[in-house]
């Protein structure tokens, strides 16, 4: 393998770490809770954007940006849960359309903030420091993001499958009525899961934006697009499938960019997704359905 392809593949794998985190957030909402929340990607972007804006305009110290983004993200996500899922009754289609409305409102709101939706700089503590491994050169912040992502994925797995709270979530998803009989407050468990997904997603968004040194409104569409592609590739019901799909997508996009040029990068993931749906309708991992209505 030529050196530059190997270098690209490693970079792609590292970028895939952030995709894995993002895919995990989508997995919790779409796969575990079975809610089609189209406002999710935009919510992540908006929270990081507003945090960056308050750092740049109002002199909030930069280490406070991530906690601030997390608070905003949780608040918006819980509002979406109330407005579009708890209060909208009937067909799942209606909730989905309501989340689309929320998406439009959030993006327009950001364009009317003092930042006008334009890029906001984000402090990157690692700057552009590089480490050399043999003949490969890697950015320190990318490695940090990769390790953090995989650790969080492992943590979520342990939480879902080896803790009482995780068991509660799984019971609620399996059968709401049964959860009630067991004395589990299904509404509260759902809210907590939404909040958890918001935390993971905001961290993913923040780490990605930090690696880019800036955030703008396009990150919302980016998050939605990547998250949905990864979700479908990984199979909606399987956490490790999602992680594998995210890493694979990261590698293929980066190598593809090297070989075919940057213009068509998004098409790689998209083409993969359609081929996979045609061949294995339920993704590589498991046969769980994506939020069937």
């Amino acid at each position, binding site marked *: 393998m030529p050196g530059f392809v190997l270098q690209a593949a490693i970079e792609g794998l590292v970028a895939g770490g952030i995709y894995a985190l993002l895919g995990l957030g989508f997995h919790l909402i779409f796969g575990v809770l079975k809610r*089609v929340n189209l406002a999710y990607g935009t919510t992540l972007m908006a929270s990081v954007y507003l945090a960056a804006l308050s750092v740049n305009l109002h002199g909030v110290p930069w280490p406070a940006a991530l906690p601030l983004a997390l608070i905003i993200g949780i608040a918006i996500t819980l509002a979406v849960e109330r407005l579009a899922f708890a209060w909208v009754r009937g067909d799942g289609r209606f909730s*989905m359309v309501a989340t689309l409305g929320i998406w439009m409102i959030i993006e327009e709101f950001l364009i009317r903030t003092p930042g006008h939706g334009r890029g906001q700089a984000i402090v990157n503590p690692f700057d552009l420091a590089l480490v050399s491994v043999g003949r490969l050169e890697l950015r320190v912040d990318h490695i940090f993001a990769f390790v953090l992502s995989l650790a969080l994925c492992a943590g979520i797995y342990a939480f879902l499958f080896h803790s009482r709270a995780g068991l509660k979530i799984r019971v609620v998803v399996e059968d709401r009525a049964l959860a009630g009989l067991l004395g589990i407050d299904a509404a509260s468990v759902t809210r907590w899961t939404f909040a958890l997904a918001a935390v993971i997603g905001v961290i993913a968004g923040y780490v990605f934006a930090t690696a880019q040194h800036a955030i703008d409104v396009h990150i919302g569409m980016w998050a939605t*697009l990547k998250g*949905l592609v990864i979700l479908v590739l990984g199979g909606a019901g399987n956490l490790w499938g999602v992680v594998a799909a995210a890493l694979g997508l990261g590698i293929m996009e980066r190598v593809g960019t090297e070989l075919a040029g940057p213009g068509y990068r998004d098409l790689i993931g998209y083409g993969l997704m359609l081929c996979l749906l045609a061949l294995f309708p339920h993704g590589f991992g498991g046969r769980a*359905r994506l939020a*069937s*209505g």
Partner: protein
Amino acid sequence: MSYWYTVLTFTGINVLLAYSVYASYMTGQVSLGQSAFFGIGAYTAATLTVLSGANLFVAVIAGGAAGTIASLFVGVPTLRLRGYYLTVATVAFAEAIRVVLHNFRFGKPREGAAGDTWQGPDGPVGFRHISYLNEHNIGTFEYMSIVWCVVLVVVVVFAILERSRLGRVLRIIEEDQIVAKSIGINVSFMKVGAFAFGGFLAGIGGGLYAHLMTFISGDDFKIYLSALVLAYVVIGGGQTMWGPLVGAVIFTLLPEVSRPVKEFRLELFGILMIAVMLFRPAGMISAANVRKWAVGRRLRALLDRSSPRVSSPMVREP
């Protein structure tokens, strides 16, 4: 006056787009890919008239065919599945196609022109000089008439569809896919067919749009367009064919007559979408409204005065 003709032409194109969403909405599927089919139709039709000198009619039909093919490409793998795979796939598709159109370069150098030297889609610069209407002396009024003739045909098609067995079959699929299967309906085939018809309508709309604008670029076909068109259907009402028509007409004309509405258009749509889903998921015009008003039946009764009135035995005496 010519400004209002153009506005009405836009209205007609938006009605076409609304019906393209409505076609698959009838089967319970929500598509956010209409901006992609619209864009593919626009690029195909414009390429045909500009580079091969094709007739407008032929080019627009070809745009519709391109939209159909694109929608089959998305619909066939995803509509076999239950759940919201179609929505998820169309979100990604719309964005992917925008990127492709943004980078698409094809055509030949323009002869005898200074400055703009490219004829055909020119990557991020966009597709300029779609001058068919100018070259053939088609004025704004004529073009408006052409577009609204197409709209009229589509409205009639949907009126017939809704009164037909096929229309009821689509509604049964929306109501309950398992029941639909149990009475021998080929659910996947019907869903794909409805979606592909939607792709056709969006492609036709795109072809008409490209020639109206004379300049198009990948950025005209962002996913917000899909969201707006879905909003026309959802707010207007997705239960009968009148909802998309009324929704598209009102929400294209309203921003033109009211400046604040124009400025806060997207917020307004967002809030209305949430409000409608919370309080009246059937939209402005529900099936119950249409039955109650029964405009068609009343008209027939008016025309047919000679028919003897049947008095109800339940009439209360004063």
